[in-house]
């Protein structure tokens, strides 16, 4: 297989990588760029653990080819905090104990951030539907919803 050279912007930084034609963006992020926040849960777009933004749109990075990222802007969990200062969503997940094993958490944070950028004041139902593609097998979802809503409230008054 002939490798492909790709230039993209990841979390605001210009990056270049070489990938195989059938290599997913998730594998590129984890194995070539060292960004292991996005996780592979299912590899088939069902669980949302690999959620990233691609040109501002929430996607499963397991369903994107690395080669498709040419010229694109990618946002991952690693780009959410501001240096050592956690994003309000990250702090809220800690405050509300909205995680246990943490595998689903990066994807949920990326997805929740994407929701709040589009809709800063969602209803609980809107949060639940938006996050329907992010599966968690530990906590149950209530704490996650509380954490998102609390962060949304703080972000609105910030």
């Amino acid at each position, binding site marked *: 297989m002939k490798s492909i050279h790709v230039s993209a912007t990841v979390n605001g930084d210009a990056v270049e990588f070489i990938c195989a034609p059938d290599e997913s963006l998730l594998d590129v992020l984890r194995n070539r760029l060292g960004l292991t926040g996005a996780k592979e849960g299912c590899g088939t777009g069902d669980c949302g653990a690999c959620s990233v933004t691609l040109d501002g749109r929430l996607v499963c990075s397991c369903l*994107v080819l690395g080669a498709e990222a040419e010229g694109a802007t990618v946002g991952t969990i690693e780009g959410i905090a501001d240096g050592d200062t956690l994003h309000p969503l990250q702090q809220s997940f800690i405050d509300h104990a909205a995680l246990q094993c943490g595998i689903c958490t990066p994807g949920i944070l990326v*997805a929740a951030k994407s929701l709040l950028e589009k809709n800063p004041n969602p209803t609980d139902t809107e949060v639940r539907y938006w996050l329907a593609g992010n599966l968690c097998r530990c906590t149950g979802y209530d704490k996650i919803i509380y954490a998102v809503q609390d962060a949304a409230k703080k972000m609105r008054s910030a």
Partner: protein
Amino acid sequence: MRFARPETAHEAAALIAKETGLIRILSGGTDVMVQLKAGLVEPALIVDIKRIPGLRKITPEAGGFRIGAAVSGAELGEHAEVRALWPGVVEGAELIGSTQVQGRATMAGNLCNGSPAADAVPGLVAANAVARIMGPNGERDCPIADIPAGPGKTTLAKGEFLTSIFLPARPARSGDAYLRFIPRTEMDIAVAAAAVSLTLNDAGVISAARVALGAVAPTVRLVPAAADTIIGSKLDEAALAALSAACSAACNPIDDKRGTIEFRTQVVGVLAKRAALIAYSRAGEKK
């Protein structure tokens, strides 16, 4: 496997025409990537069509809209004018997968994947939407209803791919709706589905209608006999009962883990009645 990203539809058609191995067209990738991962297909060439001009655009045309083949469900859902003109088509497309899947999945891909349960397709068939197809012999247009050929199969010829879907203009006092049954509220595949598109005259009588069913036959199915039961009516009880019966009569479903033949046959009639009532109210008449 090789990866190509042609800049024009002609370039894509030429690349595809000269390829001797298996090809997969990549648009949203929400089916293709899953097939690759599962080892169901091992294409020699992946052709990403998203760079082709117009493929990611929604363009007004002749009172309707041309939807590029790579327009995602999320992009379609955010387009207020398309939603206003063809709400049933948009609600079908928006039922596919999660928020993440919506960020990439396309109606054209949903059609070409060939699932009898494809949520975007009954609405398109009811809308009498038309696919624009590029191929080795140039461009052609084909009604969406004529594209599904069976589970995983389409009538597209070798080397052909969709570049857009045209949603036509529609008369005043028209409405459409799509409903599916799933045993949960989100993230599932239709057990049975129905789309109804209709137009009313000034007296509130249905003057034209199209009914399409999903997941109850080897393909999404246009059912003219079902539309005939409500044309000329105001959706009174008798017309709705006849619609339901005609839809159930048109079924040829399978038994599987999601539903039995009996269940699908009965439920699709109920869905058609409810979709017709929603379409009727969207067309401007209270019921």
